[in-house]
């Protein structure tokens, strides 16, 4: 057996490479699965990956992984050498995915140094052997449903013409003539429209009824029909799917040709991809811990720079040339900082693409048709942050498919296309990245959420005062799940608050919006990076604090007249007709300071999640880029530090605490 995983570089490389290979393999399988036939390049690639895994696993003496990879390699070797052989690609895909899951879970165990499942591979090996035998005797060919790529459905449409458009019968005739290009087996009522002008009145009164078969999607057909002049409205319904799919199992020769064309096209795409891979050789991979170290060093440089430039020894000196050079140094440091930052930025593509697998598995299991769409997957996020995104996204996608999307029949009755859509969208906005997980399912049920919240006693304000948003956002509270059925994938009621915790831990925020029967959108706001922020330094007594610039709206000296004190003694300030609560830092943390009166100090208005509060401090020191350091362990262990997101070093060497704006918003004012 392999040695312990303790940073051993060979083992580290094995874990890294095998993980990459299994991910690559999964991608290939998922890409080719729908084509019902592996392309030559896919077969070669799978073969190559299995071969690599076999080799390195054997090297590391994980013989059971090696023999599993070896069997899979055998299978693909046979397919590769007998290109004319018939096989069931869907079955093989399942088998390879199973194989891959096993390998990656074992690799994880190796990485985490937990007990390995040495005999777990045996069963899969037997399955692969059987599959190979079946292929050899030709028992395991593709089921004859190639035309499934182009299934045809029956539709019923009622067309309503605009009032006063005249001669509806002739218009209907012209519609049928054009529409016949898109669909088959068309029939309509009333008949005889071109000969009998009386039918115009009938159509005007009852609409024009059309039945037809088509392999186009509901939306496509809807669009085509609405493209017809003078159509005011249509009532398009999908008729029995079952019957249709049976009818079209016999393959027409021309369909076969189509499928072949598609295959050829795909092969071309694959070949292009292979070329792309080769040209990407100028990229090297770097250990993340090295990047982290570099980032830390740059942080130190930033601090050292301000220590030098603001050195007390220089006070009062006329240093023209020094200042100029210092400026140059500053410019270079800022550039370096940007560069290091960009090195750590990783596109969301891989994180998004991981979702293909769960979508595939769930749609198969639950019998739902799901389309996964990505928008802006090239958006880049800090590597450290991306690690925290995988799980929340997985939860959200699972939830969308499991609870959000309806079964195909239900969708059709609701007038939606049978295929549900889950969209993952990402975009940059300022120093934040927004990631949206949307579905076009049934949406959240307000009543259910409220009832559940009441039952679990987690209502945080009176029901009547709650906005829709408040209600929807309760799903993020711990222990909340309205779904009665716990399925294999979700519904244990831990999902959403895990999402919330994960995102909060990286300084982000989560909100949910929903429209009943139209879908749900979960929005995650995530900082681009957590390492260096623009901060405003303030002082209270002899303490220094830093507030992230992005949270500050304005700062001002309050006038006495604007200060309001309510009956409970809470202080508030009136700014342009709006009232804001005041949180006095010196009172909050019992800091000694001479500045006690509001009019002597300064108020800083901070905003988060569309809420505002004013923070009272002695003075502003100035704006500065600060390197965020987490609180040292020995402090965190000894006492709970509330309201502090981290700390940083100022130019003069003193420590400044970075205020947690989320806490400032919600803290009870002392």
């Amino acid at each position: 057996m392999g040695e312990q995983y303790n940073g051993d570089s060979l083992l580290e490389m094995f874990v890294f490479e095998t993980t990459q290979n299994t991910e690559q393999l999964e991608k290939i399988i998922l890409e080719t699965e729908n084509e019902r036939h592996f392309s030559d390049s896919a077969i070669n690639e799978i073969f190559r990956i299995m071969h690599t895994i076999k080799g390195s696993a054997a090297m590391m003496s994980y013989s059971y992984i090696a023999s599993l990879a070896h069997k899979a390699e055998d299978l693909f070797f046979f397919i590769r050498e007998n290109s004319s052989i018939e096989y069931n690609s869907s079955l093989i895909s399942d088998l390879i995915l199973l194989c891959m899951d096993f390998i990656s879970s074992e690799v994880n165990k190796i990485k985490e140094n937990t007990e390995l499942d040495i005999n777990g591979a045996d069963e899969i090996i037997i399955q692969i052997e059987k599959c190979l035998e079946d292929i050899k005797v030709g028992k395991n060919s593709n089921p004859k449903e190639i035309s499934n790529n182009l299934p045809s459905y029956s539709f019923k449409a009622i067309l309503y013409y605009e009032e006063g458009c005249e001669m509806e019968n002739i218009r209907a005739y012209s519609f049928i003539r054009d529409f016949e290009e898109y669909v088959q087996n068309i029939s309509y009522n009333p008949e005889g429209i071109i000969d009998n002008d009386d039918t115009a009145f009938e159509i005007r009164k009852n609409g024009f009824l059309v039945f037809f078969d088509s392999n186009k999607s509901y939306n496509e057909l809807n669009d085509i029909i609405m493209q017809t002049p003078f159509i005011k409205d249509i009532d398009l319904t999908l008729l029995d799917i079952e019957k249709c799919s049976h009818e079209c199992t016999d393959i027409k020769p021309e369909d076969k040709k189509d499928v072949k064309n598609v295959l050829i096209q795909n092969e071309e795409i694959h070949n292009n991809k292979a070329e792309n891979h080769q040209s990407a050789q100028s990229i090297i991979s770097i250990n993340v811990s090295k990047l982290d170290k570099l980032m830390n060093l740059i942080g130190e440089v930033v601090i050292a720079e301000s220590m030098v430039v603001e050195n007390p020894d220089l006070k009062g000196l006329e240093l023209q040339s020094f200042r100029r050079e210092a400026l140059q140094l500053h410019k270079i440091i800022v550039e370096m900082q940007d560069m290091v930052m960009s090195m750590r930025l990783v596109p969301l593509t891989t994180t998004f693409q991981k979702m293909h697998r769960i979508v595939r598995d769930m749609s198969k299991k639950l019998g739902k048709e799901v389309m996964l769409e990505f928008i802006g997957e090239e958006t880049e996020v800090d590597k450290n942050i991306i690690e925290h995104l995988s799980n929340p996204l997985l939860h959200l996608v699972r939830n969308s498919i499991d609870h959000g999307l309806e079964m195909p029949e239900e969708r059709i009755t609701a007038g939606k296309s049978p295929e549900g859509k889950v969209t993952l969208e990402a975009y940059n906005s300022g120093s934040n990245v927004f990631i949206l997980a949307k579905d076009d399912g049934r949406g959240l049920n307000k009543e259910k959420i409220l009832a559940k919240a009441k039952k679990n006693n987690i209502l945080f304000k009176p029901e009547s005062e709650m906005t829709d948003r408040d209600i929807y956002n309760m799903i993020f509270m711990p222990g909340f799940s309205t779904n009665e059925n716990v399925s294999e994938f979700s519904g244990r009621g831990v999902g959403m608050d895990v999402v919330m915790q994960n995102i909060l831990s990286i300084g982000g925020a989560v909100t949910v919006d929903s429209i009943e029967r139209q879908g749900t959108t979960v929005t995650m706001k995530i900082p681009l990076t957590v390492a260096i922020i623009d901060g405003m330094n303030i002082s209270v007594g002899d303490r220094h604090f830093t507030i992230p610039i992005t949270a500050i709206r304005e700062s001002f000296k309050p006038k006495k007249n604007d200060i309001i004190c309510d009956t409970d003694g809470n202080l508030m300030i009136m700014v342009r007709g709006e009232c804001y609560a005041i949180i006095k830092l010196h009172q909050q943390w019992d800091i000694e300071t001479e500045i006690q009166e509001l009019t002597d100090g300064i108020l800083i208005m901070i905003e988060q999640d569309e809420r505002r509060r004013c923070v009272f401090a002695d003075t502003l020191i100035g704006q500065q880029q600060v390197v965020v350091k987490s609180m040292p362990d020995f402090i965190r262990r000894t006492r709970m530090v509330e309201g502090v997101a981290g700390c940083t070093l100022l130019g003069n060497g003193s420590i400044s605490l970075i205020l947690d704006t989320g806490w400032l918003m919600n803290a009870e004012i002392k």
Partner: protein
Amino acid sequence: MISVLVVDDAAFMRLAIKNVLEKSGFKVIADAKNGQEGIEKFLEFQPDIVTMDITMPDMTGIEALKKIREIDPAAKVVMISAMGQERMVKEAILSGAKSFIVKPYKEEHITQTLMKIATSK
């Protein structure tokens, strides 16, 4: 921009249609006062869409429509008809007119119809 050829014997109608279309972002690249001129202008300007009055002296809109469809089987022609011309409209549709608008029409009838026809296959 969608280019349109307007064929109508009445100068008033030509102007009226032109005004409506240009207001809505169409480009009226030419007009013609009878069928024969319509065919010539069609060949010269190759518009995206033709609006064709049905009743015109010398050569009717239907004859012009047939000729145009002979020249270009994919030509998109929209007929402008008066009330009660069912027989003629039928003949026009059977001869390949894409749609028809009945006078007196509303402005949006013309713009919507032309827009839909122009953007469809």
